């Protein structure tokens, strides 16, 4: 939990400092910050939802993105070494937020008709609803949040495992096994290094994927027919 609080504090402090003195002509820090938020805004929110709805759901999406990103990155910070998202709590909570968000968006837009359009897609012969409706129900209302949460969780757990494996192997070869086995430690350390870089990529990518999928789900709930 401590790791998560550190991540939260980091986000809040960083953005607090970044947005405290906003200027018309941005400095380096402000440009960087604007770029990060602008990435979420243009690529995720407006990319999937369009300008108007993108603005509506921007707070949720941007919070999601930076929370996942920060907690992913704790996995490769020395001293923290554990991704905040590699315990089920955070992914589950965020998936629930996404779940609530897209159902809210659908109901707000189409009323109860939202469930009809998502469970009984138009243009399908009535007898196929026997098959289609359970599938739609399963995929939309059960599998979406589960996959969201599990995808993030498993990615981070796997990354954590890999790093643990590499670094503990290095430690073992270097100090416990000794002798010629020490040479192995070079290889395992190199792998550890590579996977650390890889984790950096995965951290950003998973944050992007999680947020983008949420945006897409909201968008799917907003369209009348699909």
């Amino acid at each position: 939990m401590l790791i998560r609080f550190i991540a939260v504090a980091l986000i809040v402090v960083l953005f607090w400092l970044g947005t405290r003195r906003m200027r018309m002509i941005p400095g380096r820090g402000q440009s960087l910050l604007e770029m990060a938020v602008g990435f979420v805004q243009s690529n995720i929110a407006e990319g999937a939802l369009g300008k108007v709805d993108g603005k509506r759901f921007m707070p949720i999406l941007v919070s999601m993105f930076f929370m996942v990103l920060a907690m992913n990155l704790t996995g490769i910070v020395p001293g923290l070494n554990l991704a905040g998202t590699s315990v089920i709590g955070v992914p589950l909570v965020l998936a629930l937020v996404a779940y609530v968000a897209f159902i809210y968006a659908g109901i707000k837009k189409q009323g109860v008709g939202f469930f009809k359009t998502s469970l009984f897609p138009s243009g399908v012969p009535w007898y196929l609803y026997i098959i289609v409706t359970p599938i739609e129900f399963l995929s939309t209302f059960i599998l979406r949040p589960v996959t969201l949460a599990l995808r993030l969780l498993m990615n981070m757990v796997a990354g954590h495992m890999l790093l643990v494996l590499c670094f503990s192997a290095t430690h073992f070869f270097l100090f416990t096994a000794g002798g010629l086995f020490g040479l192995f430690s070079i290889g395992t350390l190199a792998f550890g290094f590579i996977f650390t870089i890889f984790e950096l990529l995965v951290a950003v990518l998973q944050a992007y994927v999680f947020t983008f999928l949420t945006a897409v789900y909201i968008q799917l709930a907003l369209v009348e027919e699909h």
Partner: protein
Amino acid sequence: MHSALLAAAGEGEVINPLLPANYDIVWSAVCFAIILFFFWKKFLPALTKTLDARADAIEGGIKKAEIAQAEAAAALEQYKTQLAEGRAEAAKIREQARLEGTAIVNELKEQATIEAARITVNAQATIEAERQAALVSLRTEVGSMAIDLASGVIGQSLSDDKKSSALVDQFLADLEASEKAKAKK
């Protein structure tokens, strides 16, 4: 990881391994709530405000530049028109001046010609008059001198006026005739 560990540790208790520990969920939710609150109420409005202000500034700048450009174009157009007008006017004035100049020159020439003609006529008249006067006085003087001379030569007074004037006329006619013959030569 914690939940898994806890699940492993509390084997005796009835813990559903699929349900994560309460604290995990609760505190994650708290984390998200904090982040969401700050982004929603503080960071995003600040960012949006700045971005909007910047967009406005850029738009305003562009608009201002456009207006300035339009003004400059208008001014240029005006100057060009004025310049053309000025040129046309200058040409007109020049033309007029030239015409006037020509007229003045012509007038002056005419006046000069007239003046010259008058002067010539006057001079001629004077000359003629003087010549006549000279002729008359010469004739009289030459006549009297000739008579005096002749009186001396022939010793007789040519007091008879009728005779003497006939003689003088005769003489002068001869003189003129001879002069004319000389001039012809």
